[in-house]
């Protein structure tokens, strides 16, 4: 699974006022792999995520994402100097995520994400949630609403296809019977999986999952593992996840990055990270109240 890098995070630093939440973190995520970002509470994992997905503007650093052929990387410095945020050619495309607003990261760079505290549209049905995720292509199909209001037939076909795509995901999640129920009525585990399916409906190349196994029992965790492996196998989507549940992390990740107090302390295969003394120290040597303090400061 060694493919070439598709995401490069370089010297990422994020400050909130005087507090340095992420300090000079660099790592790479390779195409078609599952990478995990782990670390004690308050280590800055979610902040890294928010920087990658455009919700925060990093204080310093570069976050580059590449589509298509790896030769696109050659123009990275040229793109950085040009001041533009993306560059496309016949072989692929290159994006500087730190320059893009959040919705463009999802729309153009095709990075999808889920949230630590589930953010489904709870008053909309399960199916509607998956339809909202296909907003941009459907918007185009409805002629930016104009043709849709006038009732042009082309839109109906595209809408039917979108519903079928959603149905495919619901079948995969075994939620077809709940398609017309409000998303807020689903059991917790199903909501987590629905949020992943909703992110996948945007056709991402990189899927960022913020603690997808939080609150799941052992059985549901195992189901989640299967789902993530199937996503990689069937869609070739690269996955970056934040996780506390080591059964998930160790079992499915190809690559692990460990953060502690906003600094990267280890980076490698699960085998390597598991035996890294610095990681062991970070996990065992921190008092709980210190963790809480840092968390409160970072505002997580």
């Amino acid at each position, binding site marked *: 699974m060694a493919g070439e890098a598709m995401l490069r995070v370089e010297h990422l630093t994020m400050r*909130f006022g005087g507090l340095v939440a992420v300090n000079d973190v660099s790592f790479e995520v390779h195409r078609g792999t599952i990478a995990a970002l782990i670390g004690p509470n308050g280590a800055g994992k*979610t902040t890294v995520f*928010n920087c990658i997905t455009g*919700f*925060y503007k990093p204080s310093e650093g570069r976050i580059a994402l590449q589509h298509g052929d790896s030769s696109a990387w050659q123009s990275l410095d040229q793109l950085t100097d040009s001041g533009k945020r993306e560059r496309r050619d016949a072989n692929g495309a290159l994006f500087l995520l730190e320059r893009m607003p959040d919705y463009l990261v999802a729309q153009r760079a095709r990075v999808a994400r889920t*949230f630590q505290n589930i953010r489904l549209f709870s008053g909309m049905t399960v199916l509607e949630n998956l339809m909202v995720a296909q907003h941009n292509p459907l918007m185009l199909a409805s002629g930016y609403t104009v043709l849709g209001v006038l009732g042009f037939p082309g839109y109906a076909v595209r809408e039917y296809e979108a519903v079928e795509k959603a149905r495919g995901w619901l079948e995969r999640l075994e939620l077809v019977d709940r398609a017309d129920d409000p998303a807020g009525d689903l059991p917790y585990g199903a909501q987590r999986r629905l949020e992943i399916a909703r992110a996948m409906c945007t056709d991402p190349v990189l899927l960022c999952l913020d603690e997808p196994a939080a609150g799941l029992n052992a059985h549901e965790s195992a189901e989640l593992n299967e789902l993530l492996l199937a996503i990689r196998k069937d869609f070739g989507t690269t996955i970056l996840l934040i996780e506390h549940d080591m059964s998930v992390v160790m079992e499915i990740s190809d690559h692990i990055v460990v953060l502690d107090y906003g600094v990267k302390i280890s980076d490698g295969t699960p085998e390597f990270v598991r035996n890294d003394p610095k990681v062991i120290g970070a996990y065992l040597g921190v008092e709980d109240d210190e963790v809480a303090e840092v968390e409160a400061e970072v*505002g997580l």
Partner: protein
Amino acid sequence: MDVFVQQLINGITLGSIYGLIAIGYTMVFGIIGMVNFAHGDVFMVSAFIALIAFLIVTTWLGITSVALAIFIMLIVSMAFTSLINWAIERVAYRPLRGSFRLAPLISAIGMSIFLSNFVQVTQGPRNKAIPPIIRGEFILSGHDAYTVTLSYKQIIIWGVTAVLLAAFWYLVAKTSLGRAQRACEQDQKMAALVGIDVDRTIAMTFVIAAALAAVAGTMYVMYYGVVSFSDGFVPGVKAFTAAVLGGIGSLPGAVVGGILIGLIETLWSAYFTIDYKDVAAFSVLAITLIFLPQGLFGRPDVEKV
């Protein structure tokens, strides 16, 4: 220069009144997260009560001492307005606590319409004017063309505002009521769990807000000598502007914001055109919210993802 100084004096006076009303907005917003739309009309009601108290004092009791008259006006207006605002909270807002977010706002708008129409129906639609309570002024600089004056009325407004603000600041910063208030602002559920009577604390917040509005109302009647049922809306919106400008939730911010709005209004009227003075105040509101949403003294609001 003289014009400027004079407008500065007038602006601070007007701004003190706005600031007193603004505190009511800021406190209520702080504690239950709601724009108390009826607060401007509570101010108007308090001005009416002060006016009635003035008539009782002068025409019925025949008291001639100005200081005593103003003191009685203040006390009567503060007492009755507090009672009215307490009742408003009890009837119109408390049943909606924890409900749909828009419901209290609509209820407050309804209350605002009710209050102004109630005064119109019970006291008539005409302007109510009283003779000036205090005459006299200091002449600060006298030319033939323009004299800068500081009237006794203005001094009284400054003084009363300053004294009451100090008393009120003590109440919020140093007493157990103030502590309970700050606790409820942070987390009502948790405050209730540690034994704070949340309902009572919120009710007291409305009472204090009304008392300060009543001070503003009394000063308004004393300063302008006229009040009508429709006088609540515009000062209300401007005071809210002041609260936002100062940073909503911040008490010194509300006062500073009030004085700034008062200054903007008087200076605008003096140097540009009086017709558009309200536009100036409202534009300040819009500009503040767009470029400085946390206001001058508020804490920045970091979006949580």
